[in-house]
């Protein structure tokens, strides 16, 4: 999900490339020390890095409500969930690091705009119902993409996804649980719930990336099994799954043209506004500047801590050596 518009490197067709592709076709896992085409490596760094950055930037919109959570239990659940996102970012950075790039390097690339994160986290969380909507819709969309990635061809990435999917199973449920409480609550709470769905519906659909007919990078990534489904497949699956849930909540999906299509066995729905999506990707979303500034501040303010701990560790090591 978190891999929107990942530019894929073109593959040359040498003997080695063909043998590599055959391994992937045989569903063998590629491991860090194995030979791999440079394009495969670079594309993976981009994709896993973007995925990791999305987890870390994704902490911010939900972190925004931890100090305002309405009960002690809600506060603990939300904190645990946002903490999991930090953990997932950590697992993914480690997976990317096996490809020969460091976490600090990727962080710098995020902060100076060379690497991207998912467009969804550039939308603000304005009410408590947004915590419900983010868990229900955003995590729901993420899971849809992440479950098949457990079978991706690169071993460390696949293993990180297995761990992440296992841990994320509660995330969407906690979001839906918040939505249920809100939808069944007071008039004001219902209004908040509907408002959250109104604001997050189309941005959630954008999470899957532009339509495959416009996506030039999909084919290579799918051949390499680092992208498992097309964007449109996943988006349709998400809509089909989510619409009945919205009905259950008694909320209205903000799409007047949404209807069940007996023939296709799927919902017909309105595409999100792709010009808005491109604006957000370019940096003009409602929160892009705030998000990057928050990450920069954390990074800069933390520098002395990272250096201090490193300096102490070196002193201790030197003292140990001297004592020997």
């Amino acid at each position, binding site marked *: 999900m978190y891999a929107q518009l990942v530019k894929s490197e073109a593959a040359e067709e040498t003997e080695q490339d063909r043998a590599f592709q055959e391994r992937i076709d045989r569903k063998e896992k590629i491991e860090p020390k194995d030979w791999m085409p440079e394009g495969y490596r670079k594309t993976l760094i981009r994709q896993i890095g973007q995925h990791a950055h999305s987890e870390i930037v994704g902490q911010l919109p939900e972190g925004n409500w931890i100090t305002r959570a309405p009960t002690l239990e809600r506060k603990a659940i939300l904190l645990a969930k946002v903490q999991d996102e930090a953990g997932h970012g950590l697992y993914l950075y*480690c997976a990317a690091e096996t490809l020969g790039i460091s976490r600090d390097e990727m962080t710098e690339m995020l902060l100076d705009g060379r690497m991207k994160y998912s467009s969804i986290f550039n939308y603000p969380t304005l009410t408590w119902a947004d915590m419900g909507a983010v868990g229900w819709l955003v995590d729901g969309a993420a899971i849809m993409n992440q479950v098949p990635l457990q079978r991706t061809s690169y071993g460390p990435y696949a293993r990180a996804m297995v761990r992440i999917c296992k841990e994320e199973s509660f995330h969407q449920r906690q979001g839906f649980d918040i939505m249920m409480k809100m939808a069944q609550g007071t008039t004001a709470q219902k209004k908040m719930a509907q408002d959250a769905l109104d604001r997050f519906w189309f941005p959630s659909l954008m999470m899957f990336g532009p339509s495959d007919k416009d996506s030039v990078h999909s084919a290579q990534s799918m051949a390499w099994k680092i992208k498992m489904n097309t964007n449109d497949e996943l988006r349709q699956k998400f809509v089909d799954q989510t619409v009945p849930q919205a009905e259950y909540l008694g909320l209205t999906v903000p799409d007047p043209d949404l209807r069940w299509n007996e023939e296709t066995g799927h919902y017909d729905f309105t595409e999100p506004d792709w010009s808005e999506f491109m604006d957000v990707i370019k940096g003009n979303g409602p929160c892009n500047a705030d998000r990057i500034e928050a990450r920069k501040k954390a990074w800069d303010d933390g520098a002395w801590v990272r250096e201090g701990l490193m300096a102490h560790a070196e002193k201790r090591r030197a003292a140990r050596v001297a004592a020997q």
Partner: protein
Amino acid sequence: MSNHASHPYPGTKTPEGAPRREWPLWEVFIRGQHGLSHRHVGSLHAADATMAMKNARDVYTRRHEGTSIWVVPSSAVTASSPSAKGPMYEPADSKPYRHPTFFDIPDDVGAM
């Protein structure tokens, strides 16, 4: 196991050209509740072994996954090379007698 047989990013530099001083990478192994062997669960960064141990506890046992933790500097792992896959593992293919299913024991002998 994720594989950092040598330093995974030797001598990378910051955009200003200074060498990066990152916390080193550690591999984390955890023994679960059921007394099985320690299993590789992932990696993390820490300045030294003490902090690596604490970080491993905080990062990798959030759901009571373990009863014992090992942390090993990634740089200390010596990994087999993929090109040696044949000589390393194939000889075992020809020794099926090491596996219990190699032997047919009549059912009336009972459990063995």
